[in-house]
């Protein structure tokens, strides 16, 4: 047997595999005796299921992977809470409403209010700027640009997503800051009567600079995901709109945008997730001031993640606990945002599912 690598072929062909022949004497139904043999599909007792098959192995593997998600989430939450609780109980002021951050003193006083506010405000500005531009680029790439332009342009967008955030931060601080400061002066001069553009300066490392840098970072994510969903619009729905006498833009509005809406929401939420968690770019571009102000152009602004990055090194035990508590708040904000996005997507689920 050992010198017969392909036993089964030999057995059927009636070759040298003698033992194999004895094991299956049927000869693939050529002789009349095959009438008495059981038919191909069995007929005798069914073969036993093997106890350890690939099937159960893969099932175990995938169950374990699924369980891993829960384990990791619980582990992170347990870590955050166990470190945060002692620090918060040592806090001499209200953690949720206090604006400043002095956790390293003998009488620790720190609060999340200004940091959370700055985090959300810079992210919201980033989205307000980035989402319309992203959708425009995505539509251009998926429906307007000729193919030989769309492919390289899409590649460049993906390249933009690969730029490390510290590079964006340095660029924002050293290159982008000057024009934004000039623009801020202009805004302040002409639109200073609107509170968000008011103030006496100085201008520069402001919420606006941070928000704009974030916008550039969010842009490629939202663009490439939106382009993906726009491209998946069924061609027959686009044709239906065109056949009703729609112009290209009307076709996009009738068929493409509604179809892509859940995907676009998911893309925006992913972008928001990146903006909320962004650390080093904001640490380099914001003024890192602990106050709550809707003024966008004066030096100021801070965020939870940037604060962790800039103050972790000199923090004592309570200080670290306080920073971890702020991380817990960031975690909660992200969670709420994600759940809200899912709620929006599920609201019109009936329409989406029946379309599939």
């Amino acid at each position, binding site marked *: 047997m050992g010198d017969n690598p392909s036993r089964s072929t030999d057995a059927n062909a009636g070759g040298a595999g003698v033992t194999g022949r004895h094991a299956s004497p049927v000869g693939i139904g050529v002789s009349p005796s095959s009438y008495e043999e059981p038919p191909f599909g069995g007929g005798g007792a069914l073969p036993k299921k093997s106890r350890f098959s690939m099937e159960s192995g893969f099932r175990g593997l995938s169950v374990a992977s699924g369980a891993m998600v829960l384990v990791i989430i619980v582990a992170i939450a347990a870590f955050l809470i166990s470190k945060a609780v002692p620090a918060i109980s040592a806090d001499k002021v209200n953690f949720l409403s206090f604006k400043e951050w002095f956790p390293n003193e003998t009488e620790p006083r720190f609060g999340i209010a200004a940091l959370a506010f700055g985090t959300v405000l810079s992210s919201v500005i980033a989205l307000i700027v980035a989402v319309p531009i992203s959708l425009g680029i995505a539509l251009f790439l998926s429906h307007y640009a000729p193919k030989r332009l769309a492919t390289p342009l899409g590649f460049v967008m993906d390249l933009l997503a690969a730029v490390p955030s510290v590079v964006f931060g340095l660029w924002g601080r050293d290159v982008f800051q000057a024009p934004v400061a000039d623009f801020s002066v202009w805004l302040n001069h002409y639109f200073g009567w609107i509170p968000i553009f008011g103030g006496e300066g100085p201008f520069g490392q402001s919420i606006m600079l941070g928000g704009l840098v974030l916008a550039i970072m969010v842009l490629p994510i939202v663009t490439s995901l939106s382009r993906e969903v726009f491209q998946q619009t*069924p061609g*027959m729905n686009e044709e*239906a*709109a065109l056949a009703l006498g729609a112009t290209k833009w009307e076709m996009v509005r009738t068929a493409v945008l509604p179809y892509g809406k859940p995907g676009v929401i998911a893309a925006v939420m992913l972008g928001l997730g990146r903006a909320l968690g962004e650390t080093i770019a904001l640490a380099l571009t914001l003024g890192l001031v602990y106050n709550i102000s809707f003024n966008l152009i004066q030096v100021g602004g801070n965020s939870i993640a940037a604060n962790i990055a800039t103050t972790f090194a000199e923090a004592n035990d309570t200080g670290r606990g306080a920073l971890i508590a702020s991380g817990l708040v960031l975690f909660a904000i992200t969670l709420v945002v994600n759940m809200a996005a899912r709620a929006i997507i599920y609201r019109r689920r009936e*329409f989406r599912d029946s379309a599939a």
Partner: protein
Amino acid sequence: MAKRIEASNVSSYYGSFKAIDSISMTVEPKTITALIGPSGCGKSTFLRSINRMHEVLPNARIEGRLTIDEQNIYDADVDVTAVRRLIGMVFQRPNPFPTMSIYENVVAGLKLNGVKKKSLLDDAAEQSLKSANLWNEVKDRLNRPGAGLSGGQQQRLCIARTIAVEPQVVLMDEPCSALDPISTLAIEDLMFKLKDRFTIIIVTHNMQQAARVSDKTGFFSIDKTGDPGRLIEYDDTQKIFSNPTQKKTEDYITGRFG
């Protein structure tokens, strides 16, 4: 209301591939014309050339003249969206907009044309759905998704959507090929009814259907794969199916070819 269509020497191309070769035919108002022939013979391409949907595909172009009441729809100054509003189209597979309700689907074309008044839209929706023999089945669930209907109902919804914008001509590209016989019968009944108001051109693979519904029949064929499709014979349906002049037509309708 319905209009006469006249094609003279229409040839359509996909890039360098010639799909149909100088088709000429005249379609009278308020008639049903069936286009039959083997797969790949250019019936659908010709149909899509009539409402300028052919040029939606990349590199597609067309030669020749196609007039609707003496107006060449391929003239340079003609607004293509106006042509498509004038000449509606129903596709092979039902394609209601998946994100829209039944009601929204029917009025989608009107909304595109700037009709905003709720009462006008409501009237048009009811009238179109009645014309499409669908009103009784859906009147209690107009806000349910259009894609939740059965295949035959979806196709009638698409017909309602098409006729809601009051076109002159309705093109149907194998409208029943994805449907069961009962739904097919419903669509055929509907076509007879719509004939009073519209000029209808239908592409079908079902020769019984062509014989049942149409006044005139055009038989398309190709010599071999890669050749452009040609109009072999175009005559009264009765004549085509009883006493065709061309041998090829006879072979096809008797099942000896194609």
